[in-house]
């Protein structure tokens, strides 16, 4: 289930100074605990905007419970 490669890629772009990053979550039906932690870390390190695309409602709700929704832009 856990596949955080794409988050790691995003991390690389953050480190490289990327300020506008879009993550497409439209094929992610559910996030697990490591993914949630990775996203929290990503949000903490990014200096610019990270947009999440195609987030389904259960995932959005999980992010809401983790107080992460305010740290991403949902498109």
């Amino acid at each position: 289930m856990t596949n955080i490669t794409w988050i790691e890629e995003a991390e690389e772009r953050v480190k490289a100074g990327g300020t506008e990053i879009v993550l497409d979550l439209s094929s992610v039906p559910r996030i697990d605990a490591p993914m949630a932690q990775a996203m929290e870390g990503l949000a903490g390190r990014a200096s610019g905007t990270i947009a999440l695309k195609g987030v389904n409602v259960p995932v959005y709700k999980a992010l809401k419970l983790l107080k992460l929704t305010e740290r991403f832009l949902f498109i």
Partner: protein
Amino acid sequence: MPDKVSSLPGERIAYLDGLVRQGTTAAAVFTQFTQEDVDRIVKAVVLAGLEQAQYLARLAIEETRLGVLEDKALKNMVATEFVYDYVRNRRSVGVIREFPERGLVEMAEPIGLIFSITPVTNPTSTVLFKCIMALKTRNALLFGPHPKAWRCCREAIRIMHEAAVRHGAPEGVFTCVEAPTIPDNVYLMHHKDVRLIDATGGPGAVKAAYSSGKPSLGVGAGNTPVYLEKTAQLDMAVVDILTSKTFDNGTICASEQTLVIDDEIYDAVLEKFADLGAHICTERETAVLGQMVIDPGTRAMRPMAIGQKATDIASVCGLKVAPDTKLLITPLRGVGREHPLSVEKLFPVLSVYRAKSVEEALRVCVDLNHSGGLGHTAVIFSRNEEIIGQFSEAMNAGRIIVNSPGSIGALGGVYNDMVPTFSFGCGTGGGNSTTDNVNMYHYLNIKRVARRTQAHMWFRIPNQIYFNRNAVENLRQFSSRSTVIVTNPQLEQMGLVDLVRRALPPQTPVRVLAIPDAEPEVQVVLQGVEALNLQQADQIVALGGGSVIDAAKIMKLKYASPEADLEELAAPFLDIRKRAIQYPVGSVPVRLIAISTTSGTGSEVTPFAVLIDKERGRKVTLADYSLTPDVAIVDPQFVMSMPRGLTADTGIDCLTHALEAGVSIHASPFTDSNAMQAIQMTFQYLPEAYEDPRNEEARSMMHNAACIAALAFSNASVGVNHALAHAFGAKFRISHGKANALMLPHVLAYNAAVPSKFMPSPNQRAYVAHSKYAMMADLIGLGGATVAEKVERLVAATEALLDRLGIPRSIAELGISEEEFEQAMPEMVKNAYDDPSWRSNPRMPLVNELAELLWSAYRGRRTARVSGDTVWEEANV
């Protein structure tokens, strides 16, 4: 960070915060799981728990030195297998229960992170039980075990966590505080990310949980009284009690503490206990035990005794008992401080009390119940259902166990069908919020999805209605042993009573009761009841206008149900289906036949009756379908001689009924058809009947119209016009019809405007009063292009009709001074507001609006312009 500053070292706080973070993440992730995911995981952990039941029991014994290995293993199995049996087929994700007939659906919402305290007495079984509940409900658990049992709990948690994660549960779904301390618990109880505290622990932990301000589940202390009543099956009772009290050395808080035995069986019972391995203590031994195992200061158990074997306790106390002794039985002479062993004893010491009577036994059980065991558990052994009922009534206990062991019985699912648990809610008596056996539903936020339902409606009318000329002849078919004709002196003089007499079957004994021609007062009704009793009447024929028929309805009510309290029956109500007062079902069979001599009230078919409350200067409306006459006769020959003024007043009353029923929130297609028909007939025939009283067709049609309008408002009710007319009419002694007429144009305009406050009504899909007025205008051919125009024309046509009938144009025209009216205003407004009539009005009248309407009627008709307010344009019918 927690809300409360803590004295814990920084590293400890970081450690606890880390556990909380793991739990909150797991809980958030868990919300995405389906029922199938959850059920798969639950099954896996149940099997893991079952497999390790004995291992965990051994760990618990080694660490706590309490209880019995075999019993602890059994508890672990109950905590897994029995709890699983309860939860496995229950839904806990999404829709969990449906009540289609009520339009209700219950849905589950997980709680989040739950901080759970577990006890030293049942450590691993409580962990297993809670893990299953949490997984089933998609919650995460952070355990704070008892400091003397944390290692075995940690191992139980590890086993459950591994099994759960292996089958897909989120990492961190169960965590455990290692080497826990009370400050740790306090810190976690106040942590902002802990959503619920589930405190299965001692009174201190439970109190701390409830004091934290967090939603909490708690348990209470027990002091289980057992009443062994003389009809009980003694062999079963003795074995059950022995089994229960010695189970895990008495550590289950629901276990038996004091056995209250009927005198007749006392000696036999003790003999049976002794035969099965109990030691019956002497008075001296009891005193020694009391001093040794109970702290005289706190009246609490000494820890050294909790969960220990009977022989070990005896040995420590210096008592000589047989080596195979299972239980120490200590005779008691009372309950309270002077009787140390009358408290909770979580070890195999059982007190016994000899009761000389059932009453004494129940009193002692109440004393025990109130001596530290409120809300917990009580047990009775009896075959006398009445005594079981008395005992259950007397005990304040969440679990009242009948003819079975207290401890295992209270756990649920083994000896009875209670919900299996390891956490006993003890209600407010035990300082808890529930008396339930705590179960999976306590770990859920249950959302109720409530769909709009329509209130049941009806169309109830008298059994028989006879109409047209000579309808009175139908009286012939009603045989009677004794008939009383209720009427008024004028009608008797006019010979109308003779018409009725002639129509009754020959030889019917008849007595005529002539009452004043005025709205009935209580005294008049009571005199009528006296007459009915004197005649032993089985039939009442009410001949007259609304007042006479109303009087007859109430006479019938009081005659058939002498206990009926009219004041109480007139109590206000919002919805007739849910009213607080129920009308009595009469014990005297009596038929009521109503023959109306006016064409307005329709009282011959309605379930209403108006009574004058002279003392308070107000009209009281009684309303119940039991008041509806059994037979109505609508015969125009009884109205041919109606004076013109009365024709006008009653005719407008009929119109008001139809107009108000038409826009009522209780209107239905059934009532609409009657209301619309009556409006059309009234506009057409009332002027003719008024101007040409001998016009029999007009008289007949108006007589029918009044009855038809009444059929409508009997089922749809009336509105604010009637509420105002009742209040104003009673205050100034104005006839009902005239009072209605004076209010009518103003109320039409008021209802047609956009309401300042809507009336809640599940049966109305939109505000339609204006549209229905427009339909009425169309029906009587008033023309108009828009809804507003049509409503304007309806108001104007109503005013024109009133003018044509010679109705005063204002209240002022009645000779009532402005000062007098102003002075009466507060009382009128209060009485109008108290009147039930307006509760079916489409627009909810505010108190100040009632006053405005009265003032508007005072000033006169031409002020009743709809254009002053906004009239809705759209037709939403």
